[in-house]
């Protein structure tokens, strides 16, 4: 498991046209890695994420993605993701094909992918319009034992899953603590796994049941303090709710958005420079 500078890790493992899952449910969202994808001008990506959040709003608005698989696309507690909406409603900066699921379905799709299954199963009840939209890939089957009707959700196996985590040890094992979302399933479903971490330690002080990704599962890791900002890393820094509130006005307008991205993402060398520019670096 090589420890690489973030630019090199992304340049090596994220290619145009790849399916890419940056996971982390509200917590540990890999913003630094997403920004590096934008700086490297990756194109035609199929982005996968339960909650696209601000990082996919940014990737979509900067023209990196042509397809999105997701289950809830808003700015949590604030409102819309305006760049996502602009792409869907007015095809700006380019058309975006949607595949949408419920949270339960998408979590199951990752779990199926992580288990080497072609699909995951859950009970089927009333049909909703989610089963009828273009791009919906849900089907029903009968349980061979009980005859119960089941929904089959196709497995998701991203080309690359990217996570942010708290720590990596000398052997390259990675520790995640706090809200884990479907991060572990998304990583184990992927063909390649990239990780950014807050810090490197000699030995992980992990509780017995803490989530540890063993080094041999990881394609490359990069040390990026603050790499989840403006989301958060439990034990390191809290979620910057003020930034999430401020993003609404920044992203509402194409020009304000583009200017912000040019100044704060394209115009800086790395994530540390972004944190300094925003005045959050201590």
């Amino acid at each position: 498991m090589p420890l690489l500078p973030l630019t090199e890790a992304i340049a090596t493992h994220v290619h145009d046209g790849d399916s890419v899952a940056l996971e982390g449910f509200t917590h540990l969202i890999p913003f630094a890695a997403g920004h590096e994808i934008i700086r490297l001008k990756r194109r035609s990506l199929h982005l996968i994420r339960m909650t696209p959040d601000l990082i996919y709003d940014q990737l979509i608005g900067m023209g990196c993605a042509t397809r999105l698989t997701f289950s809830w696309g808003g700015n949590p507690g604030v409102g819309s993701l305006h760049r996502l909406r602009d792409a869907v409603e007015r095809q700006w900066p380019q058309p975006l094909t949607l595949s949408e699921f419920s949270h339960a379905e998408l979590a199951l799709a990752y779990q199926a992918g992580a288990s080497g299954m072609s699909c995951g199963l859950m009970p089927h009840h009333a049909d909703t319009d989610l089963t009828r939209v273009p791009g919906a890939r849900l089907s029903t089957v009968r349980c061979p034992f009980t005859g119960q009707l089941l929904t089959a959700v196709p497995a998701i196996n991203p080309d690359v899953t990217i996570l942010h985590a708290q720590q990596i040890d000398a052997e390259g094992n990675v520790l995640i603590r706090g809200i884990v979302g479907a991060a572990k399933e998304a990583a184990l479903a992927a063909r390649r796994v990239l990780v950014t971490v807050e810090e490197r330690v000699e030995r992980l002080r992990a509780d017995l049941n803490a989530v540890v990704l063993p080094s041999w599962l990881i394609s490359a890791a990069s040390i990026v303090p603050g790499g989840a900002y403006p989301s958060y890393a439990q034990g390191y820094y809290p979620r910057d709710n003020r930034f999430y509130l401020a993003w609404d006005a920044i992203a509402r307008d194409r020009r304000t958005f583009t200017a912000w991205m040019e100044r704060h993402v394209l115009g800086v060398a790395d994530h540390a420079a972004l944190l300094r520019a925003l005045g959050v670096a201590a």
Partner: protein
Amino acid sequence: MTAPGYTPDEIMTVTAARHLRDGAVCFVGIGLPSAACNLARMTHAPRLVLIYESGTVATKPTVLPLSIGDGELAETATAIVPLPEIFAHYLQRGRVDVGFLGAAQIDAFGNLNSTVIGDYAQPGVRLPGAGGAPEIATYAREVLVIMKQTPRSFVPRLDFLTSAGYLTGSGARAASGSPGGGPRAVITDFGVLRPRPATQELELAALYPGISVDAARAATGWPLGVAEHLEILPAPPRADLEALRDLESRTREAQARPIRINLRN
């Protein structure tokens, strides 16, 4: 009429909180549902079990989270479980008493749209989408819906069916095999709508003080029926309003705190 001394959001939140019995297990959404659940926990229902879809179980936040997965929820939780587990082992397995939902549109049978206004392929407004709502609507023993009542949101026909209420009514939901009980109450800024037992069509069951039936009807996009015994709810108790305002002021204070990140290397 003089100003009532509380805002529409406040009376909605207090009314929603009053619908929660102590000890119930609640699957909580962000916004008004989260405020109502925490208000209930801080007032009449100290043993209310709050589950947020981020996998935080029996969480006891002292301030309201902005997102469904703020660190505050993790730090005050009894357990944090992975997402596939919260949906499969808790919700789908039938371990949730009350699910709390909002939406952009609701119809007369309590079906909900949180996906799109207009045509799916050419949307007028693309909404955030399903999230946890379809399964909450299916599996929670009962669902509380909380949303502002306007003719644009209380519609005769949904643009998109995201989450099932009573479907077409008159037992259609039970026939679909949905294990949960469906929407027990829809709490609005006018009062409370409840399903009529035989047809499950939502009717006006309670009004806030000073609000007329005609006003509630005018805010509804279908011909709204009125329950045989229309209840007039009391104004929110002062103690509830004070607890809610304290909670909101603590929340504002917490959100104003600047973030500092230590760049070690």
